């Protein structure tokens, strides 16, 4: 999809032959090597090319398991109630992912769905691995052909992966082909978080968002970028905000599509379970209600992963179990995905959804990825959506179908150097994946004024 060619790095392909051999001959384990293996072949900080490749038997085995799915009985609530979005969802409406949706998903996944298309798309991009802080980090790195492109590191979330960001690579690196000008060009770096996708799985505790944020700065500097921006949604937003809090001199601004803007007095009211304070404006009141509902009824999955990630053995042993766990992220994205399996795709296709789920399956990362919630809980000083005191410039997309739509008033308070408050007409939690055009517009608009240097 990208016309950009793999960028030879300053460390070049020092160990290309050795590591490429390792990467391909190790087959399924190619993505899974630990620092001790390839480190012997090169210095730890080398950047090695990486090839995505899974043996056919892994795909066959997945299909066999899909076909052998053993179903529970039907949920006891109606389809209409199960599909309500956050605007109308009430306690007791849903029991989770519907049997009918799951059966459509499993039917398609086990028969028509073709992983090789996704693999080919991934293979068309330049992938690398480098060891940072003792862990192999995988990343996609696409340089723009335009001079003066602004480097950006974009971080995915849970239950996402680099796959949720593929659609924005070309618009960002090759803007003239996507309604932009050469001055809108970015060099794009898209890492897989530790324990996710093709990055290694930590074997020791401690890889919390702060440590990941530090690693990302190391990565950008290792790539030779001394002036860059960062972007993220979901965990990516949290990590990007942590980078902004550390404010390394090389980081000039960030953009987030899940901004943490809740003011301290609202945080207190939410924690106490109070009704919305009387002085809130309409946007603030709606945001308050969205967050209150999500905290009370929508956080079961996050709670489980924050407290007992290892107990979720079923997710790595059952494709259906993994799929339903991944589908049940938030009410609006679930409703969108469920409609897609009904034959009404609006931004996310069945293949989009299954590419991401299949990646989790093939890399066996359901539990290693869940541990990020556990790690966050060990060290977090504030809630996901609480304003954290960022002082560097920030651009924001406040999507209408996000878990909560950040009101402009809260956003201005949370980010004193607000570059841009984007309010796209459409978009759920997975903005870059679902609405790549609106996402790209906001990212371009946010950083426009910073390109003069």
């Amino acid at each position, binding site marked *: 999809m990208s016309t950009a060619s793999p960028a030879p790095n300053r460390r070049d392909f020092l160990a290309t032959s050795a590591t490429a051999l390792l990467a391909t001959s190790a087959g399924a384990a190619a993505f899974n090597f630990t620092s001790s293996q390839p480190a012997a072949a090169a210095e730890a900080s080398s950047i090695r090319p990486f090839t995505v490749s899974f043996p056919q038997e892994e795909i066959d085995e997945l299909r066999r398991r899909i076909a052998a799915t053993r179903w529970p*009985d*039907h949920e006891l609530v109606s389809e209409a109630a199960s599909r309500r979005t956050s605007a109308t969802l009430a306690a007791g409406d849903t029991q*989770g992912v519907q049997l009918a949706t799951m059966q459509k998903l499993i039917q398609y996944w086990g028969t028509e769905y073709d992983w090789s298309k996704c693999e080919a798309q991934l293979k068309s991009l330049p992938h690398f691995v480098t060891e940072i802080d003792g862990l192999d980090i995988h990343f996609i790195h696409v340089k723009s052909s335009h001079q003066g492109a602004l480097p950006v590191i974009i971080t995915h979330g849970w239950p996402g992966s680099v796959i949720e960001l593929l659609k924005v690579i070309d618009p960002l690196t090759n803007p003239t082909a996507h309604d932009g000008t050469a001055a809108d060009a970015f060099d794009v770096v898209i890492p897989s978080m530790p324990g996710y996708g093709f990055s290694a799985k930590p074997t020791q505790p401690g890889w919390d968002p702060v440590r990941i944020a530090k690693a990302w700065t190391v990565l950008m500097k290792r790539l030779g970028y001394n002036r860059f921006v960062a972007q993220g949604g979901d965990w990516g937003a949290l990590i990007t905000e942590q980078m902004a809090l550390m404010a390394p001199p090389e980081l000039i601004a960030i953009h987030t599509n899940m901004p943490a803007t809740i003011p301290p007095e609202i945080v207190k009211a939410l924690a106490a379970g109070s009704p919305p304070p009387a002085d809130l404006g309409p946007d603030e009141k709606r945001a308050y209600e969205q967050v209150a509902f999500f905290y009370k009824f929508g956080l*079961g999955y996050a709670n489980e992963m924050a407290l*007992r990630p290892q107990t979720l*053995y*079923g997710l*790595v*042993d059952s494709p259906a*179990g993994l799929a339903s766990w991944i589908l049940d992220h938030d009410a609006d994205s679930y409703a969108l995905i469920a409609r897609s399996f009904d034959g009404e795709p609006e931004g996310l296709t069945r293949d989009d959804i299954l590419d991401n789920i299949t990646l989790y399956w093939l890399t066996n990362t359901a539990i290693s990825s869940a541990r990020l919630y556990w790690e966050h809980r060990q060290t977090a000083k504030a809630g996901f959506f609480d304003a954290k005191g960022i002082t560097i410039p920030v651009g924001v997309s406040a999507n209408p179908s996000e878990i909560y739509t950040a009101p402009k008033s809260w956003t201005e308070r949370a980010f004193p150097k607000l570059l841009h408050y984007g309010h796209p007409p459409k978009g759920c939690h997975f903005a870059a994946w679902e609405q790549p055009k609106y996402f790209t517009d906001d990212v371009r608009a946010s950083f426009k004024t910073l390109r003069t240097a």
Partner: protein
Amino acid sequence: MKLHKLATVLAFGLCIFSALANASAAEDRSIRPFTVSIPQAALEDLRRRIAETRWPDRETVDDQSQGIQLAKLKPLVKYWGAGYDWRKAEAKLNTLPQFMTTIDGVDIHFIHVRSKHPNALPLIMTHGWPGSVFELLKTVGPLTDPTAHGGRAEDAFDLVLPSMPGYGFSGKPTETGWGPDRIAQTWAELMKRLGYTRYVAQGGDWGSPVSSAMARQAPTGLLGIHINLPAVVPPEIAAVLAVGGPAPTGLTDKERAAFDALSAGAKMGNRSYATMMGTRPQTIGYAINDSPTGLAAWMLGHPGFSRWTYDNSDPEKSPDEVLDDITQYWLSNSATSAGRLYWEYGGRSVVFAAVERTLEIALPVAITVFPNETYLAPETWARRAYPNLIYFHEVDKGGHFAAWEQPELFSAELRAAFRPLRQDF
């Protein structure tokens, strides 16, 4: 206006009443003998799935703080697929008289053991999650045949052990509304159908709210209840726990210990399984219905199992003990339907007095506190919560699954607790 409203209410009430009358008239009230007989193909499918378990990487810590540890689960699953024999579990059930009867549209499976002693006191005992009738089987001998277990003939019980709707071999509800209150009504109907006009009820875990709901409803014939997971936490303490606040001042030592246990349990995430099933039982249901290992880990994640070794080092808690229970969930395909009980309750904790409306219970209540329970109910709180508390005893052994772990002691407690009620019998 008022008259009109009254007429509407009456008409509505009549409709409900006639609907109920019709339903009960049409319902087959027969009590059918029942035998467990799982097809061999289901057992082979289970063994195949166990053998093909796809494992995650090891947890990144050296304790249980991330959940069920890989090194603890793997040997159990290996034994489950190679050495464990479900047919022995099936035989344990089938040596007991089992029955099926349809109540309120749902097939109810139950074990019914009558004592050989005359004037035995009928007792309906309710299991919990992730338990089943298996957690109660060891008490059948001591309770129904006390003279063979250190008791006296006048301590004898006629024992009824039902599987809750959605659990084990009972039917799965196909509509919402099957919370503890409705199960309690069903149990009263079951006892009536069995011809019992005077009886008592007992339960721990979910069996406690079910038994408490029975006591609150006070159906004709119910003399009193015994519970081993009482709902004694007072409202002001529940409010502090809800926001993770510090211990209030003025607590007695035992109250403080109970507060600390509940507070630490909440902070350690001991109820994350309940939050998940309380909000999205169907979502976790796909994994635990499709993966035996996933099911085992999910069930063993209950804090009541945290002290269990299930590795043969403790013959009282052998691998077979937990595998009988887990295998029954698997074979009856009830992992998801069982989880819905939490959803019916909105994920609320069953230890809060206000949630259980304990002040509305006028019937006699007996409580035994087992030392390894998830929290130790202080007597002061128990007396506040249950106005008619006739028995309160702290014992020195046993945990959350008291009947399973200490069947003799548990049975002795029931004998002592219900003795005063026999005089009315």
